[in-house]
Every structure is written in C-alpha cells, then in structure tokens.
C-alpha cells in the first residue's frame, strides 16, 4: 500500500515538472482569464492602485510634486502585473523591466554614469530585406511586439498570453475609469466597451 502511494506522488511530481519546463502549450484550464472580470479582482486592483499612486507622489522629487501621466501609467501597469501573480509571461516581463529600470536608475544616482535606457524595443538599423512574409506571420509578429515579453514565444502561447493580457487591460481600464469618475464626480467617456454586452 505504501508503495502505491509513493508511485502516485512520483507521477504527480513528474507531471508538475513537465508542466513547468519549456515553452509547451499549457493546459488552458490552468490559466483562468475570466477572473479579470470579477468585481472583487477589480476592487483589489483599485485599492492597490491608489496605494501605488500615493507611493509615487511620496517618492517624487520636491521640485516635481506633480506626478506625470507616465508615472501613473507605470504604477498602474506594475500593480496589474502583480495582480497576475506571475502566472503569465506578459506580467513577468513588466515586473522584470521595472526591476531593470530601477537598478539602472540607482546606478545613475550613485555613479553618475550615463546608462542607456533599458527598453524592450531595440530597432535594428539594418534595412529590412524585401521578403514576402505571409500576412498572418507578419500580423503575429506585430502582436508579439504589443504584448510585453512575448517576442519569441510560440504562436499558440502568444494567443494564450494575448487573451489574458486583453482581459487584464480591460479590467485596468474599468478600474482607472471608475477612479476618475470618483474624482470628477461625472461619468467618463469610454472609447471601447470592455464589459460583456
């Protein structure tokens, strides 16, 4: 009896290891995209966003008491990435790039050295060869540049990440619009409808 129990444990650990390695197509059920639509998720996000914005304003230099739109955007993205709990590639990419920026910023402060801005997009200076790339592949490439951290993932994983990323972005827009409405006391004009019609 003891041996059979240890067998299932072994199989289970093998299964879990297999799931973690490589760029295989994950079982779609493990990533639930619908949680971005839940009210509680949005409420948690809004609370954390307010806290993050307060942090930004506290950390901003005395001459620049006003936090720019960019700062708010970065804070919102950071909180969104954390909300994803590290389950998706795009969220991990956002957190990684923020870490890199922070380290680069610290280097600048202490060493006064000019550190190149660490961004995800490095435009190649070589002229593009006139090659007939199939339209679908071209579009997939454009999409991979829009979703953070997904430039080199396989097509199915790209689609998976995109689905989650879009749901998360929609929640971000809903939360920020609600926040804005609170502060202005009037409804916000929505460019896109992000709720279930």
């Amino acid at each position, binding site marked *: 009896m003891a041996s059979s129990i240890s067998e299932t444990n072994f199989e289970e650990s093998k299964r879990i290891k297999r799931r973690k390695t490589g760029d295989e197509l994950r079982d779609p059920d493990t990533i639930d995209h619908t949680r971005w639509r839940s009210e509680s998720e949005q409420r948690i996000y809004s609370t954390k966003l307010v806290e993050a914005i307060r942090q930004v304003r506290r950390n901003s230099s005395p001459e620049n008491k006003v936090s720019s739109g960019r700062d708010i955007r970065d804070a919102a993205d950071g909180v969104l990435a954390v909300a994803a709990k590290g389950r998706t590639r795009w969220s991990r990419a956002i957190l990684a790039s923020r870490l890199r920026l922070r380290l680069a910023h610290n280097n600048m402060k202490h060493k006064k050295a000019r550190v190149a801005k660490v961004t995800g997009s490095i435009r190649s200076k070589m002229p593009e060869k006139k090659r007939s790339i199939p339209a679908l592949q071209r579009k997939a490439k454009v999409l991979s540049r829009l979703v953070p951290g997904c430039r080199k993932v396989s097509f*199915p994983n790209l689609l998976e990440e995109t689905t989650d990323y879009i749901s998360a972005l929609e929640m971000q827009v809903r939360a920020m619009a609600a926040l804005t409405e609170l502060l202005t006391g009037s409804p916000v004009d929505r460019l896109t409808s992000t709720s279930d019609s």
Partner: protein
Amino acid sequence: MSSRRSRSRQQSGVSSNITDEQITDLVSKLQQLIPEIRNRRSNKVSASKVLQETCNYIRSLHREVDDLSDRLSDLLATTDTDSAQAAIIRSLLM
C-alpha cells in the same frame, strides 16, 4: 506511453505537437474578446482579420490607459490627496 510516441511520430512534420485544431480553438477564444468582431455577428472571420483587430484593440486599450493616466495625474494634482483617498476608500468598502 506507446500512444504518446506514435502521436509525435505522426506530427513529425510540425515543429511541435501543436495541432491546427488547438490553434483554431485559441483564435476563436480570442475572437470572442474583441468587441469589433463580436458585434459584427459573422461566424466566418479569418485568422488574419482576428489578429489585425486584436492588434488594433490592444493599441486602443493602451491609448485609453494613457489617457486615463494623464487625467488622473491632473486630477490628483489639484485635489487634496487625503480627501480623494477617503472618498475612494469609502466607495471601495461599500
């Protein structure tokens, strides 16, 4: 075990064990999210169109976030943070 081996041999032409069916399934899931396509009510949308509209949609969402960020930064500059936060927390708790 042996069934897994034979399956990979069958699909040795593809670089990985991903079927067309899986891709179509993912594309249709994505399709459901894009309001442009969802509201048009046509069942036959090419994968190329879905990708195109997805890119456009993500770009518009990014624009919206940028716009809201700018507005929030303006609003927070003029309002007193503490009172704004009190209002937010009150409404979040309700």
